Structures are given as C-alpha cells and as structure tokens.
C-alpha cells in the first residue's frame, strides 16, 4: 500500500450483482475503500484508467468472452505494474490460471476461489497481502499442486508439519503469517522453512515473493 494512505482503494469487477455487492461489503468491513464497481472487463479497464486504485478485485469470467476477466487482470498488471495490484476471484481450481497470472511476477497478485467470499476473513486477509505487494494463492489451489507431487519421493520425505508449512509458503504467506495460522512461534517457522528448503534441495529465497515462486515452481514440476 502506497505510503501516506491508510485506506487502500479498490475497484470490484464482477458481472454478478450479488457477488459485486458481497465483495464490496466484505472489503469495506476490512478497511478498504471501494471506489468503483465494474460489470465487465472493458468497464473495469476504463475505470482503472480514469482513477487507478490500489487494488482491482476481478472476476476471472466476465463478458464478453469466458476469460475476459483474466485477460483484463493481465492487462492491468502489464500496464500499471505495482501501482495497481490485482486479486483474481475464480471458480476454477486449476492451478494453471494462477500460474499464468504469476508468470509476470508474484508481487502484488492473488488468485482466490470465489468460495472465499463466504469466509470474509480469508478474502480480507488475501486482499491485504496482495495490496501490500505480496501474493495470495488459494489454499485449495495449492492443495491441487501438492496433490500432484504427493506421489513424488521428495515430498514424502517431509514431515506432516513441514508439508503444512510448505503449502502455506505456496499460498504466499510470510513467516509471521504462517506462524499465526499454524499457531507456532516465528522462530519455529523459520527453522521449519530452512529444513524444507534443505530437504527439497531448494535455494532459500531472499524474500517472501521469491520464496513463493520457488515453491510453486517446485510443486509444478513437470518432469
């Protein structure tokens, strides 16, 4: 979130009025200022161009075409970089959408399932991480990736707790966030992450975002 402003601005884009209203209400309750609501991808791009917000929450599927929302999100990231962060809400579990979105960098981007709207705290938490320049990948989507690798030998070397930490890292959480979520001391989390990186032969990244990329790339291994 840019300095000097304590209330981040948001534009919510979704073709369903119910979802638009719901997301708006939740974000407002979480300390965001919703400056606009868009019903289509074109409308979103227009509104962002007029008054760039800190965050755009975008439905992946909007008129005119099926993935117009995703395309609009990519356009925004391309054009505005870190000025406008993007959180995509999707009904698709497939990690490929998220990975596609992350292809341009994990900083300030999120991919959450729409179901999260039903748990307002999750949505607010994700939106906050993204608007602060971090990333938020839906736990279910990460679970899809972990499920893939379940069969590989390396992951079976991890202890259950370590696997939980790995998934949390993949979601884009910082050590502090992981510690809070798993009810652990931050020192313990630091130790566990080091252990995981060691076991999986990964280079420890200098920051949280690089760490997400490394973990996701590891999970999405295709060979």
């Amino acid at each position, binding site marked *: 979130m840019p300095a000097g402003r304590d209330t981040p601005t948001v534009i919510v884009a979704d073709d369903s009025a119910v979802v638009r209203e*719901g997301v708006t209400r939740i974000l407002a309750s979480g300390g965001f200022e919703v400056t606009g609501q868009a019903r289509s991808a074109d409308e979103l791009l227009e509104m962002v161009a007029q008054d760039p917000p800190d965050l755009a929450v975008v439905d992946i*599927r909007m008129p005119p075409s099926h993935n117009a929302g995703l395309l609009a999100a990519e356009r925004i990231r391309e054009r505005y970089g870190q000025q406008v962060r993007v959180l995509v809400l999707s009904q*698709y579990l*497939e990690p490929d959408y998220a990975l596609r979105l992350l292809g341009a960098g994990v900083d300030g981007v999120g991919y959450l399932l729409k179901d999260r709207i*039903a748990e307002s705290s999750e949505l607010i938490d994700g939106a906050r991480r993204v608007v602060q320049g971090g990333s938020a990948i839906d736990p279910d989507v990460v679970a899809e990736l972990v499920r893939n690798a379940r069969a590989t030998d390396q992951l079976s070397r991890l202890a259950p707790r370590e696997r939980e930490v790995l998934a949390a890292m993949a979601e884009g959480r910082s050590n502090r966030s992981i510690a809070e979520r798993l009810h652990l001391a931050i020192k313990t989390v630091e130790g566990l992450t080091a252990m995981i990186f060691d076991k999986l032969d990964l280079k420890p990244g200098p920051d949280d975002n690089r760490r997400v990329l490394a973990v996701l790339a590891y999970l999405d291994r295709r060979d």
Partner: protein
Amino acid sequence: MSARVVSGVAALVFAIVTAMVGVGQGAPLRFLLLDAILGLSFLVAGMLAWRRRPDVRTGPALTLCVGLWFLGSYGPAGIEGLSSLGFSFEQYYDLVLAYLVLTFPQRRLERLPRLLLVVLAANLVLRSFARLLLYDPPTFDPIGCSACPSNPFAVWPNAALSQSVEVVTGTVIVAAYVLIVGLVILRWGNAPSPSRRILRPVLLAGGVAAFAAAYQNANLLTEIVFQRPLLAVEDLWIEIEAWLLFGARALIPLGFLAGVFLLRAAHGPAARLAVEFGTDRDRPEHIESALRQALADPSIEVRHWDAELNRWTDEQGDPAQALQEADGRSVLLLERHGSPVAAVVHDAVLLEDPGLLASVGAVLRLSIDNDRLSAQVQRQLEEVHASRARILAAADEERRGIERDLHDGAQHRLLGISMSLQDVRSQAASIGAPDVLLDRLELVAVELREAMREMRELARGIHPAVLTNEGLEPAVRTLARRCTVPVDLGIDLNGRLPAPVETTAYYVVAEGLTNVARHSRATRSRVQLGLENGFLVVEVSDDGSGGASPGNGSGLRGLSDRVAALDGVLTVTSRGSGGTCLRAEIPRL
C-alpha cells in the same frame, strides 16, 4: 433319346453298312479305310460340336455330311442301282459344308452368298437327275468306275444330252466353288480381330476344301470335254493329287471342331471382364476400357443413363448423345425394371455370337449395379459420419452450456446465500444470540461451502472450463496432477486446436489415466501429445499389468466411437507385463 444320339447312331450304322458293302464288293482296302476314316471323322466332329454347342447348327450339319459322304461311296461300288444312286448324288456334302463355312457360327447369309448357294444346289440337283435318268452306263469318271453296272433308272438314255448337261452344270459348279473361295477370303479380310480368332480354322479348312471341290469338278469337266485331266501328270502324281483332295476334305471336320471350341472359349471375355471390372475401379472410364480390352473391340463406347436428370452421360459423367445403331455398329441396351441403365455400342460382328453378348451384358449389369450400390452406400456412410460428428459437437456444446449455467447461476446463488448467512450470523452475534444458534449457523455455512465445492467438481466433470479457456495443455496437466500414479508429460503442441479435437483428446487422456489409476497397478505412466502429419497423436502408457482392450468396458468403447466420429483411430496395445498403451490419432481437421 435325343436327336443327337439318334442321328449319331444312324450315321454310324450307315457307315458300317457301307464299309461292309465295300468289303463284299472287293474294293481296295486302302480306299475303304480312308473313306471310312474321313466319314467317321465327320461323325466325331459333328457329335462333339453338337454336344458342345447345341444352339449352333454345325453339329447336326456335320452329322448330315456323314450320310452324304457315305452315299457317294456307293458310286464306285459296282452294284446295280446303288452305284447309280451313289454316283448321281455324290458330293452333296460339299454344298452343306459350303453353307456351314459361309454361315459359321450363326451368321445370316447375305444376298450374294445365298444366291450362290441356291445356284450351286440347283445345278447339283440338275446334274444328279441328269445322271440318274439319262446316263447308261452311269459314269464319266475315268478313275472311279471303269466297269460299272448299267443304270436301272435310265428311263431315257441320251449320251449327247447328258454330256451337255454335265458340261453346263459342271461349269456352273466349278464357278460356284471358285466364288465360294473368293467369299471365304473376303470374309476373312472383313472379320474384326475377335472374330478372326474363331473363324480362322473354319475359313482356312473351308477355303481349302472349296478349292479342292472346284478343282475336282474342273478335272471332271476337262475329262468330259477334252478327254484328259486338268493337269496332265504322271501316275505317281495322280495318286498324290487324290490324297491332297482327300486331305482337303479331312481338314473340314477338324476346322469346324476347332471353331466350335474357340466359340466356346470366346465366352472367356465375360470372365475376363469380371476380373477387369474388379480392378482399377477408381478410374471413371474403367467399364469402357475393360469392355474394349475383353472384346478386343477398340471402338466400344459406353453410356450411362442418369435417371435424375433424364439424360445419357459418358463414363466421366458428362452429358453425351444417345448411342445410335449405324452401319456395322450395334447397340446393346441394358435395362432395369423397364428403364435404361446403360448402353454399349459395339462392332455388329459381335452379334454373331449372341451368347457372348448376353454374358458380357450380364457381367456389365452386375458391375454397374455394384458401382451404383457402392456409391449409394458411400453416400449414406458419409451422411451418417457427418451426423455423428454433429451429434457429438452438439452434445459437447450442451455440456459446456450446463457447466456455464452451473457456475453463473447455481454457484452464484449459493455464494449469495453464503454471504447472507454470514450477515445473519454476525447480526445474531451482535444481538447476543445463544452459542447453540451461532454454532448451528456455522455448521450450515460449512455445509454450504462443501456444497459449493461439490458443485465445482460436478461442473468440472461435466466440462472442464480450463479446456475451453486455456486449451488442451493446461487441461491435460490438471488431469496428470490429479492422477494418483505419477505422470510424465510430454506435450508438444503448437497453439490451440479445433474444439472437437481438443475435447476428444482430453477425454482420451482422462480415460487413459483413469484406467492407469484404477486397473493397471502401474508405478508410473506417461502422457504424450504431439502433432504428426496433420494428426494429433495422443498416447497414454504405463508400466502396469496390461489387459485393457477397446471392447473391455464401455469407457474405452465410447471413447473409440468418439475418436472415430472425427475420422480418428483409437488403439489399445496391451503388452502383458510391459504395460498398456492407449493411442489415439485424430485428424487436426
């Protein structure tokens, strides 16, 4: 008993009687033997020809010749009465043979040959009755009968008149045989090549025999007029001459026999035609060229009747003029239920063997019917094929529609309810509702989230949106990720493919990986997608226990149908311990 057997037995009996009479009269053995052999060779040839081709008159005519031949044998026999009859009615077989040669195998006589045969017959008859009624002793033949008995039929013996009749009729007879030789040569020259093969032995033997008859009659004539033979030769040559004339007649039965057998063989073209029709079917003009080949008639043309457009077409299907009968050209019309099917114009000489045209026509009709039916089947097959692809596309579209409706309709509605529930819960909490109520509300919220998750999976199962939105590669990657057996992916696709192709390939991978996970006890599997020669090739293989086949379980069969609807091929190779490989080759469209 058939006429053939009766005639044969009668002729045989006559031959035996004649030979016995000859023996009784002390005729030279050599003469008897040759006479009998020649007469019997006519009989054998006649019987064989009769049996082989009862529809051709060669057989009966040759058998008749046996009788006529042995009738002449009584001429030099030296028995009063019989000798006169034999001498008077000798050489009638030459007339029959001339008729056979000129008409073989079933030709109608034209005006000139008919006139010639009538004149010949009239003169032979005239000479016969002159000899029977005017001569006594009855012969002028210096060789045949030197001490012949008197003629009991000579009611009005007149040497001068009989000599005049002999000269006049003899001259006409010689001229007739010479003309017959000419006609034979002419017929050979005019015959088209297919006929020549059959006519060759008959015309050759006939020509030689007619020449021999002419020579023999000319010899007799010079004997009467100049009291010397036509060629003044020594005794030795007289003998050779007699043998040659004899041999010339002996050729006749052989020639006809060969001709009749060749006539039979000429039906070979029908069989050859059937073979020709079988090969080279793809060429539009194959019927025409096969007919030309089989009938050795390069002038053959074929027309087909186009019943829809009511017109004749050539073999290429272009409109063409109706075929006309013309000079030397005849038209064979093939019909079905009274309407024309095809027409063939051919050399009229082929009509001489109606059996040939009938069998060729039958083969042709079969072939045309066959072509028509296979074209019809092909057309129907294409229609069925196209409709199958359309049905498949429609079903896919419907599934896409259902998936969209679930997401945009039901799922959004559930989301709305979920949010309302949250509101209710927080309001309830703010007015201090009891924990029991709040817990119940939380439970409902959890159930609701579970319902949404299930609905997402359901929609995904109906149609994976990622396939439509992102393409085959991400969709297949998701399948691989979800498979409980580790999957190696080898995907080399150049962009998107048409939706039916992508959808079908997706189902191939889905079914393949389902089987890998369920049945194969595999530890590893491999999915490969690539483009080869305009085909999308999909392969799902594993290192499991094998045993899958397309007939095995409706999953693979339905998949096979789906692939086939796009003109693709699905194969399952099960290598026992070497695992299973499911492979689909789908045209890229």
